[in-house]
């Protein structure tokens, strides 16, 4: 079996629209699980995920693999969207408007489908990671501590922390996608 196409290639100019579609499908469940930790409303979770990916599409050229895995970049965008929504009292739609995305209305069936996606438990997926990876992911991705600080706290090199974060996120994504 061949290796999956790296995120940087999917986001690069060669990836095109199809590349972004693969990128979206690869990460959307993790992003929804992430935003679902902050809101239990399916409409808000969908808006947050949509704005996160719209922003990622607009700024895909800014993704820098040397700064961490793409899912960490997406979580960072989602985190900013959540913070902005808390300040404004509503989820921004700036990037969706810019890209011409229309609002997705949730009827009962769609809301139920969204709730099923939201039930994918990020905490559970995190709990299933080896302790070292779990701590690295939580500190770096969720708490946004600098690699240098985590390395100093844990007593190992930054490279080791980067590896733990990267492996932890890969496992997390698989687990949230229902993969092996």
């Amino acid at each position: 079996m061949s290796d999956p196409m790296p995120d940087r290639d999917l986001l690069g100019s060669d990836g095109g629209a199809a590349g972004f579609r693969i990128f979206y499908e690869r990460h959307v469940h993790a992003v929804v699980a992430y935003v679902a930790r902050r809101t239990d409303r399916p409409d808000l979770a969908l808006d947050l995920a949509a704005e996160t990916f719209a922003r990622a599409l607009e700024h895909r050229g800014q993704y820098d693999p040397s700064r961490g895995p793409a899912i960490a970049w997406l979580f960072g965008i989602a985190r900013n969207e959540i913070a902005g929504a808390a300040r404004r009292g509503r989820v921004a739609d700036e990037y969706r408007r810019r890209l011409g995305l229309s609002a997705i209305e949730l009827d009962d069936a769609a809301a139920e489908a969204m709730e099923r996606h939201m039930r994918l438990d990020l905490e559970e997926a995190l709990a299933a990671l080896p302790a070292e990876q779990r701590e690295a992911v939580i500190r770096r991705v969720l708490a946004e501590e600098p690699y240098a600080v985590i390395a100093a706290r844990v007593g190992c090199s930054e490279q080791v922390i980067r590896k733990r974060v990267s492996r932890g996120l890969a496992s997390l994504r698989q687990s949230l996608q229902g993969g092996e």
Partner: protein
Amino acid sequence: MDPLQTLGDQLFEAALRNRAAARPRRRWRGSRPLVALAAVLLLAGGAAGAAALLNSRPSAPLFGALGPSRYEIDMSPYLNAGETGWCVGVISTEQGRFRGWSEGCGGAPGAPIIAESFSAPEAHHATLNWAITTAAVGAVRFGDHVVRTRSEARLPKGFRAAVEIVAPGHGPGPGLVREVTRTRGGVEVRTRPRPVEALNARGQLIHQRTPEKLTPGSAPWWFQKTVYWAPPQPPPQLPCSIHTSGLPGPEPQWGNVATAVRAIPGVPDSAFISCADTEFYWSHTPLEAAVLLDAARPGSEPAAFPQMNPVAGQPGVFDAPGGVQGHLTGRRMNGAWLVVQGAGSLAQRLALLHEITVLSPASLWR
């Protein structure tokens, strides 16, 4: 249809249209009159400080209505071992339902502004600008608006807050700062949006030090060296280590313990430093236990938590709202606080609080 499928289709079509990255990011733009005004203010020097306060507005409370939503800003101690400082969180609710939150922890001790949020005004929705400051700060400048700080019971002693609710379309302009750089060819003058700034009681600027840049292997100056552990290893035999005796339910996941503690100068009396933290999971609910010391004088009795109340039937045990991180339940022990924080129930926090033991934190600083 599955809404995530619909969203994927829409994004695919948008990517096909290849409109991504076609437009620049929204930025503050300085108009000529504003540039001129900024230059005049800078030239005016000290008089500008007085003018700033003269035109200032009072702070809104740390909780209240923001359009159809409600907001709450809270502070709770930063529990990570080796760290000092606070976690500041904003919780948003609508009709009693949780809508979302944002949070940040840490920051350099002694900085006049320890946390802030300043966003561009919205055309159709109210926005919230806020800053948590030390007691030395009399007002905070958000763009062209100056907001006087206030003290509140939900803030730790020695801290103040400036909160501004910005009506739709009435946000503070960016304010502009003129920067003069000497170059080989002469001088280069640029203007840039003014950051959130702390002003003293006379309206004069209090400089906020630029955060130090961390190099690989380095740590912030206030950070205390810690040792990491994770099961199946037991916690290290250090004075501050948190131990458990096997209560069924809470399972330790990892921990950090300080090997020594030194006083941190320049922090308010209410500041803590954590000498140990341990993360527990209890039926997938994360609970964090920590040992907190007085940051300025380790070994002396640490300060009370904001809004803490005695727990009925539990002598010496207190509970305080911990904001985004969940309630904080603690008991004093020999110049330290032993605390448990998390989203679990009070019964869970109490059970864990009575379960954990610490060897002898006092010997860390004696």
